[in-house]
């Protein structure tokens, strides 16, 4: 059954389209499923996008093009060169600009008839309810667990639909949370994974088209919610495997004991989501474990004077191909199985890209009895910055 969202009251809803709008939206207007009535619903709808990155790119572009009357864009980040591989709202000349503002400019150019508001701020427990209250639909296009739980809880408290999408390498998930009889994110995942057990950065990365597909699915669900047409992904988790090019779906149930949306909720106001997720921001720099370190400059000095050092590279083979310090390649994930390849009597310097995985490796090896082992502080990135700029950063 189709589910429709009620537009926020306050401003007087638009009752007609200009001739220019009629021309712009003519391919919608000639569809009976949209028509003038649907197009006016879109024009009167207010959608808030949390994140203007990979998922936010197709979301912003399609929702603006479709004529959603008011779009809010929340992002505190700035456009980075590595974003351009998938965040198709941005151009090369946007690098260094705030994402929310760069996206606003791009969408305003795409559709000058809609209202676009950019919020260059981090979504927090202090501002979420205030930000959300003026919008009909919230779309979650973030990249971290604390914000996902925050978006979910705020949507439940304000009774707003939460159009969810997430991606990992070749796989995506999408669903609609926060509908009256539907489940919420906490019904699906009551707790986040502890930081140590989330997939390591070695396994990160994403194929650029994937957020395009998943974000487009979110855009479609958002438009259907506004139109009140079709079957939404309420109570269904859509799984997309881009490598196998397969869609599957799983049943999601509303958990009556859910701490947020259950019959007796125990969480009735927003909490500290970083504490809840056990992280001070997922991008918290530096190693998670404290281990003995060596700086890139110290390592350079010692190598130049001919010290016998065994360089252990715990990254993945495909990363070794990008750049390397001619170390012995032994990926972190294989360390337990291949630890016998290492000679504990030699002095070992372990490194990865940023120093995080190698810190785990050093920690593990120290526990396994290795005494002469150091972590290269800041990894190959710091080596490139401080010793050899010809080594590319990735």
């Amino acid at each position, binding site marked *: 059954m189709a589910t429709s969202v009620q537009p926020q009251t306050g401003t007087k809803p638009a009752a007609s389209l200009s001739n220019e709008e009629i021309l712009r939206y003519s391919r919608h207007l000639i569809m009976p499923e949209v028509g003038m009535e649907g197009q006016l619903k879109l024009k009167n709808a207010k959608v808030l996008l949390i*994140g203007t*990155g*990979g*998922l936010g790119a197709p979301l912003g572009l399609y929702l603006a093009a479709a004529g959603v009357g008011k779009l809010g864009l929340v992002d505190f980040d700035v456009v980075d060169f*590595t974003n351009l591989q998938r965040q198709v709202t941005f151009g090369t000349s946007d690098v260094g600009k705030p994402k929310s503002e760069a996206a606003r400019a791009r969408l305003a150019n795409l559709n000058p008839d809609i209202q676009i508001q950019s919020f260059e701020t981090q979504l927090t427990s202090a501002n979420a309810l205030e930000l959300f209250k003026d919008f009909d639909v919230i779309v979650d*296009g*973030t*990249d*971290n*667990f604390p914000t*996902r739980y925050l978006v979910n809880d705020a949507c439940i408290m304000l009774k707003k639909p939460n159009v969810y*999408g*997430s*991606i*990992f*390498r*070749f*796989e995506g*998930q999408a669903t609609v949370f926060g509908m009256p009889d539907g489940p919420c994110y906490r019904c*699906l*995942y*009551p*707790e*986040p*994974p502890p930081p140590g*057990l*989330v*997939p*390591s*950065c*070695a*396994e*990160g*990365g*994403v194929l650029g088209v994937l*957020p395009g597909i998943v974000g487009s699915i979110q855009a479609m669900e958002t438009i259907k919610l506004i139109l009140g047409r079709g079957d939404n992904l309420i109570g269904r*988790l859509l*799984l997309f495997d881009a490598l*196998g090019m397969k869609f*599957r*779906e*799983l*049943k*999601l*149930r509303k958990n009556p004991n859910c701490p947020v949306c259950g019959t007796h909720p125990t969480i009735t106001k927003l909490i500290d989501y970083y504490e809840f997720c056990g992280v001070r921001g*997922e*991008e918290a720099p530096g190693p998670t474990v404290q281990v003995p370190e060596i700086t890139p400059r110290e390592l350079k000095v010692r190598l130049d004077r001919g010290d016998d050092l065994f360089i252990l590279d715990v990254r993945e083979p495909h990363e070794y191909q990008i750049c390397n310090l001619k170390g012995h390649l032994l*990926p972190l*994930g294989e360390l*337990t*199985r291949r630890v016998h390849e290492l000679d504990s009597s030699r002095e070992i310097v372990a490194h990865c*890209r*940023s120093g995080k995985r190698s810190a785990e490796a050093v920690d593990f090896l120290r526990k396994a009895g290795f005494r002469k082992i150091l972590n290269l502080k800041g990894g190959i990135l710091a080596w490139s910055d401080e010793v050899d700029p010809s080594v590319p950063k990735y």
Partner: protein
Amino acid sequence: MPVKVMIPSPLRPYAGKRDSAEFSARTVGEALGHLTTEFADLRKHLFTDEGKLRSFVNVYVNDEDIRYLAKENTPTKDGDTISIIPSIAGGVRA
């Protein structure tokens, strides 16, 4: 025809890069037991030290969440697909 266990990409590094594995098993718990015996590195990602399935790992038999069936005692029959669905936050974290 045995039970097929689908391994999601975040966990494939701990499962010899495999995307699925097949086992003869009468219950979900048995299938996951076989899986973590074959791929020992997977164990800590799926189970707590006390041997309980971790709360952020969802397991489905076909399209049903085992939390709403008989949890790890949920019976399986030949041809069933067990899916492990870990939470993914999205985006790229470098």
